């Protein structure tokens, strides 16, 4: 009996040891590149970076949060990022939905169209940005020419249009994934339901409005929240298209973090901005989890 207990005990210990061994690689990476920098941000945010290098950093506590989060620059960044999200996310989803509805039919050769509609998933932010940067170039850009702007400066240099242009590029780049998502959502709508609505005399619009759209709402919600989170992380298109300009009109949050650290060497400010970005992401993620929880309850 004793031997058996010893044996069982050691087996449990070995199982636990194996468990720790298996999660260890991930934990090492997370510890070094997720948790450490996360807490380091909080530490950095309490110290003011001196105006000249080689001077010691000065502890200022929460004063720095107060100064930076209250500054006009931060309010501008927040406004610009929010505007960017509001302009790009719903537009992308609606256009993706339109394409998905049009491609949701049985036709010979429809797969070719589906491939074309999803084709922009093959473009990265950088590819899309470089394509449109040159299309909007005043000297050679076709789009600038057709927009009737002739040799006027690119919309990317125009305070009124820069953010619109950046959002437009983003919408085009995300069209593929939006189409794929919405198509999958449409495919999950049972045909029998639409058929019986048709038998009941519901028209095209009424079927879409009363059958398809409600059943599509989880997909739409998912796309909105994830799109919103990603919009708040936008950086590449700003770096390639506008560098935050003209005059801060496209200075989104992540670009502001980037310039404060890599141009101004102000890690204190970068840390405060990064924490602000974290809080925004957290709120959006919690909204999503909250919703997913509710959906699971519906199913049961």
């Amino acid at each position, binding site marked *: 009996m004793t031997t058996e207990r010893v044996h069982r005990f050691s087996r449990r210990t070995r*199982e*636990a040891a194996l*468990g720790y061994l*298996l*999660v260890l*690689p*991930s*934990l090492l*990476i*997370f510890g070094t*590149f997720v948790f*450490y*920098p996360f807490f380091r*941000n909080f530490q950095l945010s309490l110290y003011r970076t001196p105006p000249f290098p080689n001077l010691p950093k000065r502890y200022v506590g929460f004063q720095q949060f107060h100064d930076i989060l209250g500054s006009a620059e931060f309010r501008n960044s927040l406004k610009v990022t929010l505007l960017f999200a509001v302009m790009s996310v719903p537009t992308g989803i609606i256009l993706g939905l*339109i394409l998905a509805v*049009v491609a949701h039919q049985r*036709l010979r050769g429809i797969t070719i*169209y589906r491939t074309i509609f*999803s*084709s922009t*998933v*093959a473009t990265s*932010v*950088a*590819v899309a940005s*470089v*394509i449109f*940067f*040159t*299309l909007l170039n005043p*000297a*050679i850009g*076709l789009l600038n*020419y*057709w*927009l*009737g*702007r*002739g040799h*006027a400066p690119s919309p990317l240099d125009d305070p009124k249009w820069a953010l619109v242009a950046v959002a437009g590029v983003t919408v085009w780049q995300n069209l593929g994934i939006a189409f*794929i998502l919405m198509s*999958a959502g449409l*495919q999950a709508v049972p045909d029998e339901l639409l058929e019986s609505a048709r038998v009941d005399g519901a028209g*095209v619009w009424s079927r879409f409005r009363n059958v398809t759209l409600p059943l599509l709402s*989880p*997909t739409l919600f998912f*796309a909105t929240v*994830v799109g919103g989170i990603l919009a708040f*992380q936008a950086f*590449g298109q700003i*770096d*390639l298209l506008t560098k935050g300009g003209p005059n801060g009109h496209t200075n989104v949050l*992540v670009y502001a*973090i*980037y310039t404060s650290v890599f141009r101004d060497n102000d890690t204190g400010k970068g840390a405060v901005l*990064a924490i602000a970005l*974290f809080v925004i*992401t*957290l709120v959006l*993620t919690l909204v999503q989890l909250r919703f997913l929880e509710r959906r699971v309850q519906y199913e049961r």
Partner: protein
Amino acid sequence: MSADVMLATLTPGFQRFLVVIALLVVAAIVLAIVSAKATPHTARRASAVNRYLLLTMLALIVLFPIYVTVVNSLLRPDVIGHRPPTLFPTHPLWNTYSSAWSDGHLGRYLFNSFFVTLLIVIGQIITAVLAAYAFAFLAFPLKRFIFVLFLSTLMVPAEVTFFTNYQTVSSFRNVPVLGTIAGYNTYGALVVPFLATGFGAFLIRQAFMSLPRDLRDAAALDGYGHWRFMTRVAVPLARPAIASLALFSFFGAWNQYLWPLVVTNDDNHRTVQIGLRQLAGASVDRINVTFAGTILAALPLFVLLLVFQKQLVRGLTAGAVKG
């Protein structure tokens, strides 16, 4: 600002452009209604034509930027600026592509991107499968807490931690082995921070948990240890989830921009996304090479899309759609 004030400030050309777009949209809606109303007997053929017209119109709009880029990549730089623009290259210059490949370093950038992406995908699958196995099949103290730690990493986007990680990676310079493997401007710096994934571990844990519980007992009776059960039973059965993870991490790694931008500074290590940034800064007389480079940079994923479209759609939408 009211709507008509905004319209008045628009240049005439832009109004023309808007009119064209509006006409296209109206035509699309009319076509859609006509094809929806058409009865099977009278107008089946007409309706099919309408549908194809609508689909083709939309396809042209979506593809237009890519088409123009391909055309411009084949033109002489001075022809690109001509008005009215050339929309079909009569004398294509194919050598812009070889020029982008070698002089524009596209060959090197693409290799770097593939290499880095491959390491990240393989690394993420390995760490995620290992951790997921522990969470699904093993009992150990603090398991729940560690699992929550894994999930909490999903709340911290890389955009929040990138400059502190940049400092960490830069500080590796003074450490003997680490500096050459994962220091600033090395492949390791591009790969190592992404070798673990909370999302992937969660995804595969769910797949493992959905396997019948008897499976483990049966395998144990057959004398399978944990290692053999994992590699011969659990992993093969979780293949769809692993494929999904591979796809996500491939896209994530391939499209990375911010991190490669801050931790690389030479062409030997730059990924294709950062390479494009270099290329975009080229002078106007080499702008066709920039266009060619952009096409080359997009081509690998485009080919993947053509070959794996079905799997791609299934993998990318996993979790987003009910059922």
